[in-house]
């Protein structure tokens, strides 16, 4: 374990990068998921078709393929786009951070689409009827009736999606982002202790997953707090 002493700061900053990717992709994932779910629930046939294609494509393709395609593909697309304005540009560099974040958010967003859709359909029809009978407006029904029921239904799957996002961040090292696996490879090259270096990466990921799991468990307990018997 002595081999690792000089590398703690690198691991620390790489963990920060992982957390940043996680935060950014979580936000994007929720947006993609909500748009997808709205499209699937809408009356428009075209929107439904597009949303179905989105979920089929991103659930049926290996994650690494999506990451590579978006990274290299967006570089080529942006290069040719910029060349329209300035032909002297040879190559546009896409930051791996954003290409990777976007890619994993798209992948997990396709799963979140189903979760959000299921949560919307899972709202008790009786609750909605009761709200109508009480004279609540559509907006009020949505805010006070639908949302409180929906997040409780979606939470367990949503927790799994968050774990998938964290684990997918490891893929971004493939496109050269300076994150945990990347640090471990550098550290291995200098110290010749691959097992130690990669195990540290595993433990950091395990730690992050544990925190997320505990957080979701806490939220689930909070979501059930109204069901607890009075003391």
């Amino acid at each position: 374990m002595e081999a690792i002493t000089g590398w703690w700061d690198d691991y620390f900053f790489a963990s920060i990068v992982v957390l940043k990717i996680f935060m950014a992709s979580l936000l994007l994932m929720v947006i993609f998921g909500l748009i997808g779910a709205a499209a699937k629930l809408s009356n428009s046939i075209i929107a439904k078709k597009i949303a179905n294609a989105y979920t089929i494509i991103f659930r049926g393709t290996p994650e690494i393929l999506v990451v590579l395609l978006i990274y290299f593909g967006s570089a080529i697309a942006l290069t040719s786009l910029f060349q329209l304005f300035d032909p002297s540009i040879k190559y546009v560099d896409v930051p791996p951070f954003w290409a990777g974040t976007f890619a994993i958010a798209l992948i997990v967003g396709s799963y979140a689409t189903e979760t959000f859709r299921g949560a919307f359909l899972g709202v008790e029809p009786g609750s909605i009827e009761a709200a109508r009978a009480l004279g609540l407006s559509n907006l009020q029904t949505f805010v006070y009736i639908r949302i409180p029921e929906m997040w409780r239904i979606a939470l367990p799957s949503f927790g799994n999606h968050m774990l998938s996002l964290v684990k997918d961040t490891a893929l971004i090292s493939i496109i050269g982002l300076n994150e945990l696996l990347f640090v471990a490879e550098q550290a291995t090259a200098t110290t010749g202790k691959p097992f130690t270096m990669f195990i540290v990466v595993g433990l950091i990921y395990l730690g992050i997953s544990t925190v997320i799991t505990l957080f979701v468990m806490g939220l689930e307990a909070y979501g059930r707090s109204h069901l607890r018997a009075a003391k």
Partner: protein
Amino acid sequence: MSFDITLILDSLPKMLSGIGLTFQLLILSGVLGLLLAFVLLLMRLTEKWYFSVPAQVFIYVFRGTPILVQIFIIYYGLPQFEAIRESIFWPILREPFGCAILALTLNTGAYVSEILRGAVLAVDRGLLEAGSALGLSRNQRFIYITSPLAIRLGIPPYSNDVISLLKSTALASTITIFDMMGIARTIVAETYAPYEIFISLAIIYMIFTFFIQKGFGYFENFMSRHVKK
């Protein structure tokens, strides 16, 4: 930016030549993973803590870390130890293919055992009570009542896991295995045509996903044939 059809037609056969390796990875680690999952399930179902706790820790560790990290620990990490290089497993662990199989097996085993456990726990208690009322022993109840019902309940989530496994086999390309993904990455490195190559490969993977889904759909129908009208 143009879409080069001839390039696709040229590289499709090359990529498809990796199909055998992709299937070997999928089927070998799928079968071994299922066996591992079953052992883990039995370990968790016993009430003995020295069986159930190790199984739980194993599942927790392998579900809580990225599969890519697991592959790297096994492929790059294990040779750090003299003992492993001298053990009888070295011929397997020396090869990237052996390492990929090991990593995928351990990973899918952890996930599938959770699926199996969920399916076993979902079997109606009343049926088990009926079984014990009829004088069936614990093992007989497990074999004749729990298993057939649990298999049926487990098929939909299991098919999702097989699809995940198929997608994970593409990660083997990171440790110099030339499965379809590995070949595609080499072609892209040579031609720098990510759109053509990666999109056609994505379609190939989607076709496999489709067949896996269909196959398990038929299997599920077959297993639920007694509930049909």
